[in-house]
């Protein structure tokens, strides 16, 4: 081969390496950016008057007189719409039945969509579900719902070769020549004045409980559940992992028993997470009867088993990284083996052990499969510490899955889902960045 060709091959090989690293960085950015942007939308958004009314009614939060004034303004500004509808309804009851039959279904559909946008009509009875009691609380959702009011969507199946075709009919044309026709341009031009959107930072998203199956409110129960599960898992895994690492590094002598144990640790690390979930169900719940059904305790134990190998390995590495001279100095001063371990080796290895523990913590917080059968429920109240022994809990990871795939109106609450993902991802990121920083300081110390 020519030297030129060999050079080109060499360069392109280098380029391939650079390309794959670039792709990895790009993938990370592409995955994180939508989560941060759209997840941030759960906390900071343009909140309408309905959002402020909701906070006032459900959580007693906000400046009551100011909000009540805003509500009065809201009622005044939307009143013309309902006046025109009432006028048209009266005209229909007076008029002939053919005309009534023509307009009644369309009017019913219009009133339903108006209710979704602006909340229950003035004077209407208070609906049962919270989602029907309030109009759109977020301006971005309100714009989408306005489109539903202005335009009626239907599916045309008349052409069997093409399947359903979406047809968009402006309601203004449907109601042409009736008093109602006037409300559509009015709504289109004055929606912002009616709903009075204002930049809002809803910190309550993190600290409020959700209600009406996550339509409103925050994710406090899920955050707390994730915290309990993670803390519980660490409570079991950390001491056991450190003790095992001490034994393996300081006491064990190579032999069949130790080889069996190390093989088991790598095997345990390779068990698929869903199998841990089944095992937790079969062992902790169905055999040991730790709790009658799912509980935080059973979930924590399952998670602890899952992260145990990681904890052991990182602790082992950290202990092995302690210079031999430390140990020799301690032994030569007359310290016993145990004193050497607890007094010299462990303190020196502590930052390293901590790094591993933090990373395992992130893993336990994010893992879903092991808690599906052992701890997680879709909807629940925040638990007290004592209840964790017997009660299941909602958790961030499980609820992300549940809201994104099984919720009755998953498209309506995308912002909640993204907010949960953001909360979980930032939790894990913070833990990992902390670990990276701790490790960087260790390596600096070892170098210096």
């Amino acid at each position, binding site marked *: *081969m020519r030297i030129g*060709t*060999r050079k*080109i*091959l060499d360069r*392109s*090989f*280098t380029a391939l*390496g650079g390309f*794959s*690293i670039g792709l*990895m*960085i790009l993938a*990370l950015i592409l*995955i994180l950016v*939508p*989560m941060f942007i759209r997840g941030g939308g759960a906390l900071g958004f343009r909140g309408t008057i309905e959002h402020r009314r909701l906070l006032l009614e459900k959580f007693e939060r906000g400046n009551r007189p100011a909000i009540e004034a805003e509500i009065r303004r809201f009622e005044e500004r939307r009143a013309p719409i309902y006046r025109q509808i009432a006028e048209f309804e009266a005209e229909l009851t007076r008029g002939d039945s053919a005309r009534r039959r023509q307009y009644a279904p369309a009017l019913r559909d219009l009133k339903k969509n108006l209710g979704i946008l602006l909340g229950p009509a003035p004077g209407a009875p208070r609906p049962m579900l919270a989602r029907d009691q309030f109009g759109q609380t977020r301006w971005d959702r309100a714009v989408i719902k306005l489109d539903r009011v202005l335009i009626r969507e239907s599916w045309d199946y008349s052409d069997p070769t093409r399947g359903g075709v979406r047809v968009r009919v402006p309601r203004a044309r449907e109601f042409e020549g009736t008093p109602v026709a006037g409300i559509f341009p009015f709504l289109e031009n004055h929606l912002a004045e009616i709903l009075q959107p204002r930049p809002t930072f809803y910190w309550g998203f993190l600290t409020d409980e959700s209600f009406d199956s996550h339509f409103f409110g925050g994710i406090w129960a899920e955050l707390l559940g994730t915290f309990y599960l993670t803390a519980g898992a660490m409570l079991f895994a950390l001491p*056991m992992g450190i003790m*095992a690492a*001490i*034994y*393996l590094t300081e*006491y*064990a002598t190579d032999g069949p028993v130790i080889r069996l144990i190390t*093989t*088991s*640790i790598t*095997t*345990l690390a*390779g*068990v*698929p*997470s*869903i*199998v841990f*979930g*089944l*095992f937790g*169900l*079969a*062992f902790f719940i169905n055999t040991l009867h730790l709790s009658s059904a799912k509980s935080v305790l059973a979930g924590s134990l399952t998670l602890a*088993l899952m992260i*145990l190998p990681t904890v052991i390995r990182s602790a082992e590495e950290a202990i092995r990284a302690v210079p031999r001279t430390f140990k020799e100095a301690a032994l030569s001063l007359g310290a016993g*083996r145990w004193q050497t371990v607890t007094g010299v080796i462990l303190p020196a290895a502590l930052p390293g052990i901590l790094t591993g523990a933090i*990373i395992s913590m992130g893993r336990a*917080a*994010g*893992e879903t*499969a092991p808690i*599906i059968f052992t701890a997680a429920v879709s909807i629940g109240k925040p638990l007290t510490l004592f209840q964790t022994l017997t009660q299941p809990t909602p958790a961030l*990871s499980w609820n992300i*899955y549940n809201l*994104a*795939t099984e919720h009755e109106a998953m498209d309506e609450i995308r912002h909640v889902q*993204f907010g949960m993902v953001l909360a979980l*991802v930032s939790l*894990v990121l913070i*833990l*990992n960045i902390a670990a*990276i920083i701790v490790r960087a300081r260790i390596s600096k110390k070892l170098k210096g």
Partner: protein
Amino acid sequence: MIKGDTWLTPTLARRGLLLTPAARRRQWLVRHVGQGSLLLVTSLSTLAVLFIFYFIIRDAWPFVQLRGIREFFTSTHWYPSAAGAEFGAASILFGSAVVTFGAILVAVPLGVAAAVCLSDVLPFSLRQGVKPVIEILAAIPSVAYGFFALVVFAPLLQEKGGQLLAVASWLIGAPVLALAIIVLSDLATTRMTDARRRAGRWGLAMGLAVPALYGLWALSRGLDGLQINSGTNALNVAIILGIMALPTVVSVSEDALQAVGRELREGSYALGATRAETLVKIVIPAARSGITAAIILGVMRALGETMVVWMASGNAAQIPTPWFNVLEPVRTLTATIAGDMGEADQVTGSARYHVLFFMALCLLVFSFLCNGISQRFIRKAKRISES
């Protein structure tokens, strides 16, 4: 010796340095009980592995008794809840295999190339900057990947999938073909005389470039016109699983490449090889065992993953037609276990409940074997690098 100065009496001096028999026994006891309990805690992992195998087998065995295993592995009729329930999981096993294979196809070339770049190309400071990226990629929870696949990637694939694939075919195809043409035309003209070689090389390259460009253009046209019915399909899952398996592949193979000694590299450079030749012909073959271990660990990561496939694979228990059509939804073992247990839990004792444990057993046995093999390769790699 002054009388009354008791602490220097011989007996006390002796007792100060030597333990009384009772104290010695106590110390012996404490040491052994302590070590014993440490060993007990340590062996908990072994106990856990044994228990996992025992409990999964215990609940999987009734399925074998009730239905036998032939239907499970050979039939594609998966109707666990119908009146005449059928438990043919061949399509589910196929789905698991397809997404795992696809993930490996994504993760291994990229992962090994990235590992090579990290260990041999990038300067130290840049490498330190890339490491956290890999760690964070590994740390993002699987449910977040699944959510991304379902909510962001699937709609994109459904609406713009054809264009994306066409762009990707150009991005990958054009450089690969260009390189192939350069190498081919060079190799084909080595026998020619110097005077004719240059012209021959260019002529051959041009001659090859025209059909190659046409082929690429036709391929991208075909891909561009592709109708993707659903964004939740095997391709989506394979790409996301590939990204998830990348960190494992990169870090394990980088370790393997680092373990190959400087002497081999220096020897190769001294003989006049370029960096690419050194890496491809010397370093990567020397690190073969470690890279194999990395691939196996990547397979395990992709196969055992639950949330991404459950959310974004479409969960249709079918073998697509034709079987390599990755734009069709599939269903995997892990997703079936996760999805069916909620309902099957109410019918404990039925074949429907136990079949899920049988699936878990399949996963467990497979990952156990993989683990054994990868450990063997890692040990081998360590032996090689030490010798």
